[in-house]
């Protein structure tokens, strides 16, 4: 990094050197007076509180409160209080799927881990999957069935609904994607009783275009086999179809090792996209396109690889290079994907893959993640509006909110004779229905899933129903006049159609494993394709424009929020978006140049208008890397009836979801967004220090494993020395265990699953938008997102500052760096604590003792990595934080092994010390030494790509020991080596698979230092 002309910046504030940024970067804690709502404390109040406090303390001291201990009346055999049980289950939300292990304590689920037995998710867990355990304890769910907005009994509801169904002629069952084969059998049973039933399914984030060209089936992709990956606006690492699965496959082709005989080959990843997505930021080469160009970009690519098309050519940076690489690669070793929902574009892409021989290799078999049929859904909406539907049942569907025709459906629903929803709350659609038969949460239900043909998965309950809810399947069976016991139905269906045996052992094994995958290990045949290329090309030619200077709209999906089904989950609301680092909002993203053109600034509220649609007002967020003349808005926000955490956060753009590429007008309203958008990235700065991110390109890495590394030297009277050679510290001995972490920057996609995993494991509180704006977020692990761009010559930048800014943010490269307590062996925080609340253990941990901390905050000020968090409030107790921590039900998610921190104490990553202690104890109980990779931190366990590896660096059998042995003389570096704090966390340099020629522009001749840097070093050496 030192020998480049690259400049790294985390936000435009830093690039511009805004006064606000400079002011705050020198201060660990923001000026709290900024946005407090006046008030303050008065003398009399203070005295009253003091008096009350003294009285309370003396009363409390008189006699300790009597605590009760209530044992089981009849203890279940397999539940031992204080010992966690794990149950295999599956997370399913529409077409989203993950095989999981649910950790329960005393019968309540508290954490979700990945199930390594699954051939699909393979132990990875995404953000929403982790957060789903909190959705179980959502206090705003319905507590019993409802009729016309009032409570009712199940018997009444069953009787009335069955009677109304018997009278109905045109029954519609509207669902999202149904992954469960047994639920489909239930629907068939329902249809048999009510033959007029039509099952309509739709996906809020639809992939109908893709399924249309594959005979109504979603093709299955395998990114691990692709040497060249080209994505045409498909955010497959972040949000597209099955991102965690794809990320795992993608990582398989990107893993390099500096050890002897280690792999030094990587797949090459091209991305052509409009907004800065997770996939765009991880690509080796990225070209920008406007949504109105997408179809023509696909057809141009088709022509470039040798196909024929009579469409207009589009010039996009790196497109020709991508085509060259695709052609050069062996047949069947590439993959081109597109996120477009236009069947014509998908037909062109399918043709490209066919020409490249990818069907049968990187595109093999089918998947069930998206079964929505947009045409059928449109027909349904039209029929509903025309009054042709007698009865409608919604299951896992909230079309009033998350479909483009929500408004029409909302208007038509009150006129339908019978409307029933299985929603867990009176949300936008359910509140308009006559009956709500609340479905149980997946952690309370039996069920199954078949994400891909031949890959079956079980859902088993891990807690009995918290409220008086009932599984939708049971309700449907009851109304169909059958026995409502879905468990029996499920067992029978599995015995008959899946396990194909009545053996109890087979069923028990499937439940125990969570998965039953007869297709695992087989290579499925290529999916069939059904399209007419010429028609498709003709339509592409008609729809798309080679060039457009109009302002265009883009609807996109955020990694954390997805389609907004779990919007009332405060963990997801406070999860900073991997790219924009904004939480608690959606916003209109603009490029710097477009913002200049429109004369708007960050946080200005603008009015967005598309012809024929209702206008919305949103604040502006300036997004580096976004293509000029576009406005991006995320779906999943703007809920109105989801609950306290979700309602009123952002605006709903589902009505506009099909308008991507449409012309849009943006008018400033003149007002500024109150408090501004809560963005976390420029919080907790690491100041102007070097050697934070270290990266190189593949060609250089192949020559020298240490390429891109920075070796700081400190000037002494005896010449330059390595920082560790002149240490003042005595250091700590770590004889037995030495816990550490290795983070491969090359594998980290920045998805942020670790952030929510950590929040769930360590009882990290949610603080709300206002507190985040005040820089008081509490996450123990954050993912630093650095943009980098070639630094212009110094003299130029002085005169053309604005120009520089535009250039720098046009298409920056991105690096993600997970950052948590580095557990320094020479920890600066430990030396400044006046009360010894933070100390060092002989296993390499930097221990934080909450009950000893008096809140001086010296440690946070002295931390070079800015990873310490201060509890400004009692987040679990005060009314201004109305999130899950503040009600009895929400508190059930708390991990009893970790202290809930009180006001006024510091906290930070503990390396999941509770897991370390538990691992050691189970080894001791079994009279054995620890297994090599027995202990995993929550973040490392959740990482789908295996970028974070945790373990004992003293154990030669452990993964971390092996990686470090390979990389010690290679890619491994510690952050800010020059200050010699000796972290227990090692990072591995990021390698971009770029040609050296392209890298030249960045590396500028390798050793030539920029003027300023060189000067600084001369001074040091002097």
């Amino acid at each position, binding site marked *: 990094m030192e020998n480049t002309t690259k400049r790294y910046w985390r936000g435009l504030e830093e690039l511009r050197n805004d006064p606000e940024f400079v002011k705050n970067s020198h201060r660990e804690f923001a000026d709290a007076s900024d946005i407090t709502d006046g008030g303050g404390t008065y003398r009399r109040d203070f005295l009253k509180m003091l008096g009350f406090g003294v009285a309370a303390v003396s009363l409390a001291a008189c006699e300790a409160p009597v605590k009760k201990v209530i044992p089981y*009346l009849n203890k279940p055999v397999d539940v031992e*209080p*204080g*010992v966690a049980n794990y149950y295999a289950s599956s997370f399913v939300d529409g077409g989203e799927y993950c095989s999981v292990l649910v950790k329960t304590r005393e019968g309540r689920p508290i954490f979700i881990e990945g199930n390594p037995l699954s051939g699909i998710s393979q132990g990875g867990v995404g953000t929403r999957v982790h957060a789903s355990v909190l959705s179980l304890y959502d206090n705003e769910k319905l507590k019993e069935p409802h009729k016309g907005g009032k409570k009712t009994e199940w018997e009444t509801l069953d009787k009335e609904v069955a009677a109304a169904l018997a009278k109905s002629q045109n029954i519609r069952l509207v669902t999202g994607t149904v992954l469960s084969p047994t639920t489909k059998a239930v629907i068939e049973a329902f249809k048999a009783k009510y033959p007029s039933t039509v099952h309509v399914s739709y996906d809020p984030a639809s992939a109908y275009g893709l399924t249309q060209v594959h005979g109504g089936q979603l093709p299955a992709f395998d990114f691990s086999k692709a040497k060249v990956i080209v994505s045409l606006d498909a955010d497959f690492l972040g949000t597209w179809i099955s991102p965690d699965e794809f990320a795992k496959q993608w990582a398989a082709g990107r893993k390099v090792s500096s050890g002897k005989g280690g792999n030094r080959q990587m797949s090459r990843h091209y991305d052509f996209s409009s907004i800065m997505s997770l996939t765009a930021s991880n690509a080796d080469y990225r070209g920008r396109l406007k949504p109105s160009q997408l179809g023509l970009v696909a057809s141009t690519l088709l022509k470039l690889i040798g196909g024929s098309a009579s469409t207009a050519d589009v010039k996009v940076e790196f497109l020709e290079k991508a085509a060259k690489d695709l052609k050069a690669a062996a047949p069947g070793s590439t993959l081109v994907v597109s996120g477009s929902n236009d069947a014509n574009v998908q037909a062109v892409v399918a043709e490209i893959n066919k020409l490249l021989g990818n069907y049968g290799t990187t595109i093999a078999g089918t998947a069930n993640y998206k079964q929505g049929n947009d045409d059928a859904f449109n027909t349904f909406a039209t029929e509903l509006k025309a009054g042709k539907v007698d009865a409608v049942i919604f299951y896992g569907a909230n079309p009033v909110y998350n479909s483009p025709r929500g408004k029409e459906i909302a208007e038509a629903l009150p006129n339908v004779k019978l409307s029933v929803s299985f929603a867990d709350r009176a949300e936008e659609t359910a509140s308009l229905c006559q009956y709500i038969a609340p479905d149980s949460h997946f952690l309370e239900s039996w069920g199954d899933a078949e994400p891909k043909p031949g890959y079956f998965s079980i859902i088993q309950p891990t807690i009995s129903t918290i409220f008086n809810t009932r599984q939708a399947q049971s309700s449907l069976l009851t109304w169909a006049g059958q026995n409502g016991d879905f468990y029996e139905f499920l067992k029978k269906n599995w015995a008959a159609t899946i396990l194909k045996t009545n053996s109890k052992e087979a069923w028990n094994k499937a439940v125990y494993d969570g998965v039953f995958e007869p297709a695992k290990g087989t290579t499925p045949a290529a999916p069939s394709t059904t399209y007419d290329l010429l028609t498709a090309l003709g339509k592409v030619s008609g729809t798309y424009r080679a060039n457009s200077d109009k302002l265009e709209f883009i609807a996109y999906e955020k990694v954390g929020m997805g389609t907004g089904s779990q919007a009332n989950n405060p963990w997801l609301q406070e999860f900073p978006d991997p790219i924009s680092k904004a939480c608690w909002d959606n916003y209109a993203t603009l490029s710097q140049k477009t913002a200049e053109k429109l004369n708007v600034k960050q946080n200005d509220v603008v009015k967005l208008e598309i012809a024929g649609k209702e206008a919305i007002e949103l604040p502006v967020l300036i997004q580096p890397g976004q293509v000029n003349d576009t406005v991006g808005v995320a779906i999943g926000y703007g809920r109105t009836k989801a609950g306290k955490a979700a309602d009123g956060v952002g605006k709903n753009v589902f009505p506009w979801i099909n308008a991507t590429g449409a012309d849009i007008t943006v008018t400033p309203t003149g007002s500024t967004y109150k408090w501004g958008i809560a963005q976390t990235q420029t919080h907790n700065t690491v100041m102007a220090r070097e050697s934070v991110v270290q990266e190189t390109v593949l060609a250089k890495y192949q020559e020298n494993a240490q390429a891109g590394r920075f070796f700081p030297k400190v000037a002494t009277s005896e010449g330059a020395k390595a920082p560790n050679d002149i240490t003042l510290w005595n250091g700590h001995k770590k*004889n037995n265990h030495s816990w550490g972490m290795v983070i491969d920057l090359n594998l980290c996609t920045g998805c942020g699953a670790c952030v929510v995993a950590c929040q769930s494991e360590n009882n990290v509180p949610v603080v709300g938008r206002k507190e985040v704006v005040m820089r008081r977020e509490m996450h123990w692990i954050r993912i630093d997102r650095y943009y980098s761009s070639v630094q212009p010559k110094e003299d130029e930048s002085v005169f053309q500052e604005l120009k520089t800014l535009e250039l720098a943010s046009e298409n920056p490269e991105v690096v993600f760096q997970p950052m948590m307590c580095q557990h320094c062996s020479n920890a600066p925080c430990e030396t400044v604590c006046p009360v010894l609340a933070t100390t060092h*253990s002989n296993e390499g941990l930097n*221990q934080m003792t909450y009950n000893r901390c008096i809140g001086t905050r010296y440690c946070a000020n002295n931390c070079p990595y800015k990873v310490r968090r201060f509890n400004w409030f009692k987040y679990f107790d005060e009314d201004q934080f109305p999130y899950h921590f503040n009600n009895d039900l929400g508190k059930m998610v708390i991990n009893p092994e970790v202290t809930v921190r009180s006001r006024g104490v510091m906290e930070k990553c503990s390396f999941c*010390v*509770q897991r370390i202690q538990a691992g050691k*104890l189970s080894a001791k109980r079994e009279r054995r030494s620890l297994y090599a990779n027995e202990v995993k931190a929550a973040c490392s366990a959740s990482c789908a790509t295996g970028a974070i590896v945790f373990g004992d660096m003293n154990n030669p059998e452990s993964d971390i020991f092996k990686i470090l042995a390979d990389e010690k003389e290679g890619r491994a570096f510690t952050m800010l080596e020059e200050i010699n704090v000796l972290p227990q966390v090692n990072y591995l340099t990021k390698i971009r698979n770029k040609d050296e020629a392209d890298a030249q522009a960045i590396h500028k001749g390798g050793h030539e230092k920029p003027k300023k840097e060189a000067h600084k070093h001369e001074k040091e050496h002097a």
Partner: protein
Amino acid sequence: MIKRALSYFLWAATAIVLTIWSSTSSFAQDSAKGEKLFTQNCASCHNVGEQKLIGPGLKGVDTRHDEAWLIKWIKNPAGMVASGDEAAVKLYDQFKPTMMTAFGSMSDDDIKSILAYIKEKNAAPEPTTGPTGGGGGQAVAAAAGDQSSGFFSVVLVALLVVMILMLAALLGILGVLNRLSSVDPNSPEAEKIPFFARLKENAGKLGNSPAFRTGALLLFVLLAGKATLDGMYGIGIHQGYAPKQPIAFSHKLHAGEYKIDCNYCHTGVNKGKQANIPSANICMNCHNSVKASSPEIQKIYRAIEKDQPIEWIRVHNLPDLAYFNHSQHVNVGGLQCQQCHGEVQTMEVIEQRSTLTMGWCIDCHRKTNVNSKDNKYYDKLVELHASKGVKEMKVADIGGLECSKCHY
């Protein structure tokens, strides 16, 4: 000096007693695996002699059934009854509805050693059994601990007495000096003034003396300060806390007289964090038939009928910020329950014997050797420690005093 010598003697004596006890008990353990297994698993329902408890007395059991049958029966009694085994059905009919607990995890060798123990026991004349959970030896240790704190009190009282004596002496001297300075003692006036008047006058003078006032104030402040500090240190310490429980359960009866193993009811003690208060179904294992008419036992029946768990009052409370795991101490460390809980087997009402303060924890971690025998986890630590040339490896030596061992 005599006291100190005495205390050394006491300590030494305790140590000797402890060593002898621990060596004998470890020797005894090896020879009587069957006895241990019997007390842990069987004794709550079976008498080793002829007497019938919940189940039959086991004297002569080896002549009533053959060994293979017994092994099968002990591992899965319900299965045998269900399979229609004649002897099993007969036995069940005799004791129904109580069904013997299955011990599926017990090895054949375990069962054989139990049978051997029963045989040996009935052949031998009435022997003396060791106390449950090794209470005796630990009681000595606890007594020794009391002794040291008692010694400290004695010293304190002695110091206080000395100080009071000195104060009296000083006051006397002051009085004499005062008298010397104000009145010529030899003058006739001095003789005339009555003693009480003189005392009054002197006391008044003393009260006016700034030195005395300051001294008295200082003394008062110091004493008050000490009392306050002592009081504050005592906040949250509930040593001796013995609340009345909803059911008058007697540990003295169950653990002391009937010698039921602690593990039988406190099932979590070897497995997890909590030792667990037994659930009502554990009580019912015996009280299904034993003393069923007692009003206290009736309370359990009522709880089961009403489906309402029994709300016991928690005696041992650690603050939430401290992590404590029973299995670490009992299973891994091999400590006896009595070490922390006192002689539970003599308590009619359970009470908190130890202070449960951090100082108390740390103290023990400093003194206690790590139970590293036959535990591979500690091999590396033992090796490392041995290389330093120190023989004993205390808990404190391997990080037992580090904050994050208990606080996270």
